[in-house]
């Protein structure tokens, strides 16, 4: 892909994520989806930019806010939607739901219901890549809140001493549920914690897909070359509540409205239109295609069967007994 195609690809991916999640938002509000969901609307540039810098065989560890990571890494949105609908045809056969969604076929080794649960797993994936000399890299998404948990510390140190090909990518949206990052963390920039592990932490504007793409590309190249892990912090805005239905009494309206004024999609769209890389019609076509894709995903999900109750006893072990 040339630069222009890549930019178009970034826009398409962001639009697909946004369209998927807006659909999920509405379906959840309408009571169509069980459990709870955390949306990444507004943060699409991180998932899109980071995953475009990866190869199909690379791995991703995701979080509780992981739909975007799945879409960007190439997961089938039909099976994703079916999973949120708790259907047998879902990515995890209805056993995982939004918080545990995974698609190993595209290298996504799972969202996680435990904050920071993925970081140590990512280090181990990096270890296996090194042992197998497979030339892959592992990208690990996590939030600002996760950066205050012990596994962040242990995992970065372990990946650093072993020079593992792992990219730790923090989506700093300023909030951990109702707790502001500025309160919960002793320092503003999580990237600065890299120094504790001999890593040069990198800071990027997470609302700019191109910046994210560039930073992750550099980190991936370095990792494949044996340069070891990277810590990248992408500053983003959480458009939605922590979970769908969150009244957000703890957050002042101004911050939300200002935040929503910053839109990674509008930003890249304007750029591509200005540079005549795309015309309005082509953009509209991308949007139409995304809508159609998500319509199909919903149709697939709705027409899929629920699991039979006793399927709950399957998939626990490889060995039956």
């Amino acid at each position, binding site marked *: 892909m040339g630069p222009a195609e890549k930019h178009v690809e970034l826009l398409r991916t962001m639009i697909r994520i946004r369209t998927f999640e807006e659909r999920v938002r509405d379906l959840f509000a309408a009571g169509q989806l069980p459990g709870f969901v955390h949306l990444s609307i507004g943060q699409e540039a991180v998932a899109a930019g980071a995953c475009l810098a990866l190869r199909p065989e690379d791995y991703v560890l995701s979080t509780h806010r992981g739909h975007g990571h799945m879409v960007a890494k190439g997961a089938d949105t039909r099976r994703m939607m079916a999973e949120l609908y*708790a259907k047998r045809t879902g990515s995890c056969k*209805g*056993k*995982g*739901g939004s918080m*545990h969604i995974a698609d190993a076929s595209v290298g996504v080794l799972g969202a996680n219901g435990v904050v920071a649960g993925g970081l140590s797993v990512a280090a181990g994936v990096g270890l296996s890549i090194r042992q197998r000399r497979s030339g892959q890299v592992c990208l690990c998404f996590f939030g600002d809140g996760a950066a205050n*948990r012990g596994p962040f510390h242990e995992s970065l140190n372990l990946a650093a001493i072993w020079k593992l090909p792992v990219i730790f990518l923090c989506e700093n949206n300023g909030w951990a549920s109702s707790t502001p990052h500025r309160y919960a*963390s002793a320092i503003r920039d999580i990237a600065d914690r890299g120094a504790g592990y001999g890593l040069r932490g990198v800071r990027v504007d997470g609302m700019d897909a191109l910046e994210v793409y560039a930073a992750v590309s550099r980190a991936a190249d370095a990792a494949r070359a044996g340069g070891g892990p990277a810590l990248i912090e992408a500053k983003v805005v959480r458009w939605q509540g922590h979970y769908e239905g969150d009244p957000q009494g703890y957050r002042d309206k101004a911050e939300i409205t200002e935040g929503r004024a910053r839109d990674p999609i509008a930003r890249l769209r304007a750029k591509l239109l200005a540079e005549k890389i795309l015309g309005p019609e082509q953009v509209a076509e991308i949007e139409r295609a995304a809508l159609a894709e998500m319509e199909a995903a919903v149709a697939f999900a709705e027409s899929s069967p629920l699991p039979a*109750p006793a399927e709950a*006893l399957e998939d626990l072990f490889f060995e039956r007994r």
Partner: protein
Amino acid sequence: MRKLTMAEALREALIEEMTRDPRVILIGEDLRAGVPFGVTKGLAEQFGEDRVLDTPISEAAIIGASLGAAITGLRPVADMHFADFVTCAMDEVVNQIAKVRYMFGGQVDVPLVLRMPTGSVKGAAAHHSQSLEAWFTHTPGLRVVFPSTPADAKGLLKTCIRGLDPVLFFEHKRLYKMAGEVPEEETLIPLGTADVKRGGSDVTVVATGWMVHQALEAADRLGQEGLQVEVVDPRCLAPFDKATVFESVRKTNRVVIAEEAAKTGAFGAQIAAWLAEELFDHLDAPIQRVAAKDVPMPFSPPMEEFVLPDAEDIVAAVRRIL
């Protein structure tokens, strides 16, 4: 009598004890916003942010810090957010909190309460649905409390906050919104006292938490067939009120043990073991156990319902031994 939800009853207990004793502090994630179950909402405004401490997502530090505070003059009530995350502070709970008093030969008291929102809520799946109380009944040095009604929750929480020993206080997520009568006057319920929620002479059902209500429903149904089911709620798993449970079984000679945890290795197995060891001659039928199937909690409702035990399962268990 006035009715309160369990969340309101717990909040009342916290307000009363915080008012009574300035050493009582709350520590945990999202307490000021009262996320996710609303129990602590408004308390920061009332008692100040010094006493209602929101924390980073640092379970090990939060729980370890609660211990440090408890042995040096405060009375922390820590919040696990979801009981599932106790795994992130397991060393602090098991190797530090449970053992310091003993290891140090009684040099320190540990007035610490750890609130554990437990059990399943629809669609919460594998990381937000677990019932882990059995682990802590197997950890010498801990008290384990598990109320099933707003009144029990309030009376027991007050007792725990005033005590000098560490307590894991389990609160079933589905019960927060359930209302029940709660006395206006101050009521302290001593630890280690079971409560007979319904009298009966034909069979004893020992149930905990959410399953107490399933047991009462089962008792109603069976009652319509003239069967007298006695429902005993231990309320406190450690110390455990063997006397009350044994008295009931001596009378009925038949017992069903009902809990929400995964069946293998659940606390009900210990209740069964006590009966089989110490009350064997009074048992006229196999000890029946009703519990969840041995899998993580699946997300999809049909599978979740299949995995979870309910009143129907208790009815079936009673029929097996009558």
